[in-house]
């Protein structure tokens, strides 16, 4: 349904700024300006919006919030962009086309927002996502650029989320914008012929965004929760557009929702990671799980089985189990067997081995783990070593268990992880030597965060 935004805006009390209004408005305004100016002028659009927000910071404290904050912001941004374009008039790179388009857009009736329909806003945002997640850009650059221009994060916030420096994030952003300009990437939702490839890149980036937020490695927690929320918001936007509402988009959204549902239960009061089996399942967010199940149902169309489908199914198997003991490991193992054919990455193979341990016992799991080739990712070593330690413990091979837990500890990334492994090592001292070798009894698992299906 099309509604002018100017009308819906009056619902916002003029003195109250809704949560994240500026952050979200940043993305909407950059999308809108980029549509007018062309993707080649993304940097000008971004500068104009930042400028408008700083103008608000200078003005509103003295004059109060305007009656239509969004309309005020976009008008200021229009005029800033126009000023910047006009400054280039004598230069070779002068973009008269952009200036004409912008001039046409600016409403002569000063201070009133042009009529702008909500479906148009949504389409503009999607088009900007497709620009930022173009396959010509390296994935890490796309992630940073999406956060900056679509989600309205500051460079310092992005650096905090990725444990990087502002300088290197800035370099990444500048290079990405140059590539967009040089490759003449267009501001549009791609045509049906191009859509599969382009969509794949977008989903990749959104999932990276989500996993970065979800991972319990170090980093600012508030920012990380925001990353998950943004990834869900943008993926939801993709499901709401007829062209992009593909089965694998619903599958990815379901996966994110299932994982996000477990966030509140992932750590205890002291901030220590909790095992899947230790988590208080009443803390899992039922509303998110139900939303996830609805999208999982919508994902079950077409004949393409994506890795997101399998990962969403896996996550669903965990979140729908009433308690840890009732987890359907046979089903989970079947899904991992399929997933390892599509995506035989070490992480998938390690997780498959863990599921195998639940079905066939620790000896089978250890066999499977030992057959996985080593690669250079210490992050995977710690998952692998922790699993090896755990299955040795279950077999009663305490010295081996200790060795592997210590190896995992030496490549642990975060404090909670370190404490988790230290707890494991300490518990070995109290484990009776007669181990219970039967299957599926009270098997301790890895911390939930390590069960990320990367």
């Amino acid at each position, binding site marked *: 349904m099309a509604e002018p935004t100017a009308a819906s805006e009056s619902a916002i009390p003029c003195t109250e700024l809704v949560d994240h209004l500026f952050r979200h408005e*940043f993305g909407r305004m950059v999308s809108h300006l980029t549509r007018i100016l062309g993707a080649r002028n993304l940097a000008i659009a971004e500068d104009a919006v*930042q400028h408008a927000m700083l103008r608000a*910071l200078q003005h509103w*404290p003295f004059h*109060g919030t305007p009656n239509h904050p969004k309309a005020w912001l976009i008008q200021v941004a229009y005029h800033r962009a126009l000023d910047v374009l006009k400054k280039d008039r004598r230069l070779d790179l002068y973009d008269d086309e952009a200036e004409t388009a912008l001039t046409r857009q600016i409403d002569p009736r000063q201070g009133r927002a042009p009529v702008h329909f909500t479906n148009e806003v949504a389409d503009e945002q999607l088009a900007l996502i497709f620009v930022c997640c173009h396959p010509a850009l390296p994935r890490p650059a796309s992630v940073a650029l999406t956060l900056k221009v679509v989600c309205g994060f*500051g460079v310092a*916030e992005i650096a905090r989320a990725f444990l990087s420096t502002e300088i290197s994030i800035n370099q990444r952003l500048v290079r990405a914008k140059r590539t967009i300009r040089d490759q003449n990437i267009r501001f549009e939702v791609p045509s049906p012929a191009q859509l599969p490839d382009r969509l794949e890149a977008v989903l990749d980036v959104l999932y990276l965004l989500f996993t970065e937020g979800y991972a319990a490695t170090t980093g600012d927690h508030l920012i990380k929760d925001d990353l998950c929320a943004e990834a869900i918001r943008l993926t939801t936007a993709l499901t709401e557009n007829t062209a992009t509402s593909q089965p694998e988009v619903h599958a990815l959204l379901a996966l994110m929702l299932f994982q996000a549902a477990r966030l509140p239960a992932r750590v205890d009061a002291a901030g220590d990671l909790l095992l899947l089996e230790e988590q208080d399942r009443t803390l899992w967010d039922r509303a998110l799980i139900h939303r996830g199940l609805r999208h999982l149902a919508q994902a079950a169309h077409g004949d393409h089985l994506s890795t997101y489908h399998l990962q969403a199914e896996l996550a669903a198997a965990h979140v729908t189990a009433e308690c840890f003991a009732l987890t359907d490991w046979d089903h989970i193992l079947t899904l991992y067997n399929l997933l390892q054919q599509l995506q035989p990455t070490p992480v998938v193979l390690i997780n498959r081995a863990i599921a195998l341990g639940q079905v066939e016992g620790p000896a089978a799991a250890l066999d499977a783990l030992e057959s996985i080739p080593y690669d250079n990712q210490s992050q995977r070593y710690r998952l692998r070593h922790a699993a090896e330690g755990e299955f040795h413990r279950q077999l009663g091979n305490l010295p081996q268990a200790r060795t592997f837990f210590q190896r995992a500890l030496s490549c642990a990334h975060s404090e909670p992880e370190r404490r988790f492994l230290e707890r494991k090592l300490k518990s070995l001292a109290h484990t009776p030597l007669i181990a219970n070798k039967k299957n599926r009894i009270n098997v301790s698992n890895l911390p939930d965060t390590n069960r990320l299906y990367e």
Partner: protein
Amino acid sequence: MPQFALLFSAPETWRDNLSPEEIQALIAKYVAWREGLIQRNIFRGSQKLVEGTGRRLRTQNGKVLITEGPFSESQEVLGGFFVIEVPTYEDAVEVARTSPNLVDGQLIEIRQLDFMVPPPTQN
């Protein structure tokens, strides 16, 4: 009742590198402070000054000299002012003390408005 002008100055660079989220958080604080003044019925007006420019006029040997801003000798730039109506300087200080503007590098100067006697009636 006496009125006071609260003059707000800030270094020109203090807003660099703020994210939209940070900008909104700052605006929310400032706007809430201003609303508080209005609710307590001590707010009498506020104006924002255009930054980065200005003119200074003075005479030297009978000639008018005009200097164009920005005036580099001062680190802080006068950004705007509020006028409040409270009984004493101490009350004005208390009001200014609660301003969210009062953070690192920012400056608030208070001056009492010197009215003609008798004072103009407030309405």
